[in-house]
């Protein structure tokens, strides 16, 4: 086992991450505007921007899912309890005592167990809740009915509840960036792609042999 700086977020992943971030922020801002929490955009503009970025995000997700499945990268999100407790204990207690983070990134495990579980829940529960209810919401207008009754209310409730939950995720996600040695160091892997990862001798040999520009 040796710790090396390697490329953990390829250009595609960084593109997916930051495009998704921009679209999610736009959707939260316009969505809560439509909901009536603020008046910074007029209703029509908010709906146009909301619908446009929603379609953009759906396309991005189709591409991202295809990419994860074909590259095998989906495996990073397989839930594991191995080390989960240590990470939870660290954020609840050890971090205050100045302990080091108990988790080290591995070549096929670039997220800590708590992080992998959170991202999995986001992708499998919150995102589907928001896009399924969002598409139903959009299609409702095309049905040509003037009355939007009980059903639309439930669609709207689920859509709004999922939006609140995604905003909570965003707050925690950004906060956790401050918990490393520095904010910058924590953000850099998603900018230049490189981070320190524990490699087995085989992985190290493979990278040096076959992907020399992925290892420093």
């Amino acid at each position, binding site marked *: 086992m040796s710790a090396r700086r390697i490329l953990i977020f390829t250009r595609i992943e960084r593109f997916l991450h930051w495009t998704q971030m921009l679209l999610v922020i736009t959707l939260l801002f316009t969505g809560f505007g*439509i*909901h*009536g929490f603020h008046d910074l955009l007029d*209703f029509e503009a908010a709906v146009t921007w909301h619908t446009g970025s929603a379609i953009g995000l759906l396309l991005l997700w189709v591409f991202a899912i295809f990419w994860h499945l074909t590259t095998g990268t989906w495996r990073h999100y397989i839930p594991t309890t191995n080390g989960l407790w240590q990470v939870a204990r660290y954020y609840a207690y050890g*971090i*205050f*005592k*100045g302990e080091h983070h108990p988790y080290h990134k591995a070549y096929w495990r670039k997220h800590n167990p708590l992080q992998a579980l959170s991202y999995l829940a986001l992708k499998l529960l919150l995102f589907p809740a928001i896009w399924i209810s969002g598409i139903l*919401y959009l299609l409702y207008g095309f049905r040509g009915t003037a*009355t*939007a*009754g*009980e059903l*639309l*209310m439930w669609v*709207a*409730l689920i859509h*709004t*509840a999922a*939006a*609140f*939950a995604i*905003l*909570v995720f965003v*707050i*925690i996600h950004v*906060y956790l960036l*401050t*918990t490393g040695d520095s904010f910058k160091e924590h953000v850099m892997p998603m900018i230049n792609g490189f981070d320190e990862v524990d490699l087995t001798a085989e992985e190290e040999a493979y990278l040096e042999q076959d992907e020399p520009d992925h290892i420093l």
Partner: protein
Amino acid sequence: LKDLKGFYLPGRDSNRWLDMIGLLAVFGTLAAVLGHGLIRLVLKRGRKQA
């Protein structure tokens, strides 16, 4: 449109309970991370002085 009842109109209607729980969750989370960060900061200073 304001006075028409019996249907859900986005932008006009919302569920008071859901909004309350949602805002509580959002501001609760904000308060929690700020508190967590503040404790980290204070204890870090304490460690440096010790």
